[in-house]
């Protein structure tokens, strides 16, 4: 059942990304190009998503637990540290460079364009590299 919910969620998420233009790198880059011809569409997506989820989140969290699980898995970490900031800086550099972030990249892979495949494969490598590095830093043998 959880798998079915995940499948449905992924499907709706992808449709939302597609119709809002987020699977097209030039629209994402256009939003970040504030000194050029600014494209407001990414801001529209954020507003739509945060309005809906901002309200729904508060209603859902009135429940003791989610429908299919014993507890909510919500991040409790609250410190602003170097790891958070440097991670965001590095992510932003890559995001602006190609105009793709993880979700739209995965969805756009279905277009068959090899560019998205290059992006996702190297993204997986980047993720794995950090995970291995992290294991070394935080769990010395």
């Amino acid at each position: 059942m959880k798998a079915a919910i995940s499948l449905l969620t992924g499907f709706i998420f992808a449709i939302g990304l597609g119709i809002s233009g987020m699977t097209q790198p030039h629209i994402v880059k256009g939003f970040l190009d504030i000194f050029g011809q600014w494209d407001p569409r990414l801001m529209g997506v954020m507003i739509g998503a945060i309005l809906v989820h901002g309200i729904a989140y508060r209603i859902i969290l009135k429940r003791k637990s989610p429908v299919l699980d014993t507890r909510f898995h919500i991040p409790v970490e609250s410190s602003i540290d170097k790891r958070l900031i440097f991670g965001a800086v590095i992510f932003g550099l890559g995001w602006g460079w190609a105009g793709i972030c993880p979700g739209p990249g995965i969805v756009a892979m279905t277009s068959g364009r090899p560019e998205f495949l290059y992006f996702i494969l190297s993204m997986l490598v980047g993720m794995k590299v950090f995970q291995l590095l992290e294991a070394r830093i935080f769990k010395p043998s």
Partner: protein
Amino acid sequence: MQSIFGGALIGIAVSIMLLFNGRVTGISGIVGGILNPNALDRNWRIFFILGLFLGGLSLKYLAPSSMILESLATPNDYILAGLLVGFGTIMGNGCTSGHGVCGISRFSKRSIISTLTFILSGIVSVQLFKLLRGGL
């Protein structure tokens, strides 16, 4: 505007995930969890990615214009960008979905700082790209 409607769909999707599975829909975190050999909860993650694929395949037919790729970026640019995005999102614990949508909706201070930071660094990156390539 169509982008606000698309955003609302994304808001509905992440709300369904929270209501039923109790999970935050952060895509980099979901993918990172699949890559982690110690993860015990791969199943829902894999089905979420499968849902993204199915959505993408439907878009190809429902809204073919959503799959247009217009950019001066070369294959090497996509590889470089992918490496940075992968490394940075796992280091910073989230991307546009986890921090930008889910975190900001919770008013999480970490997510607000993260989102402002990656937007700023994205702006710098686009300017750098334009300077080197003469366009987007």
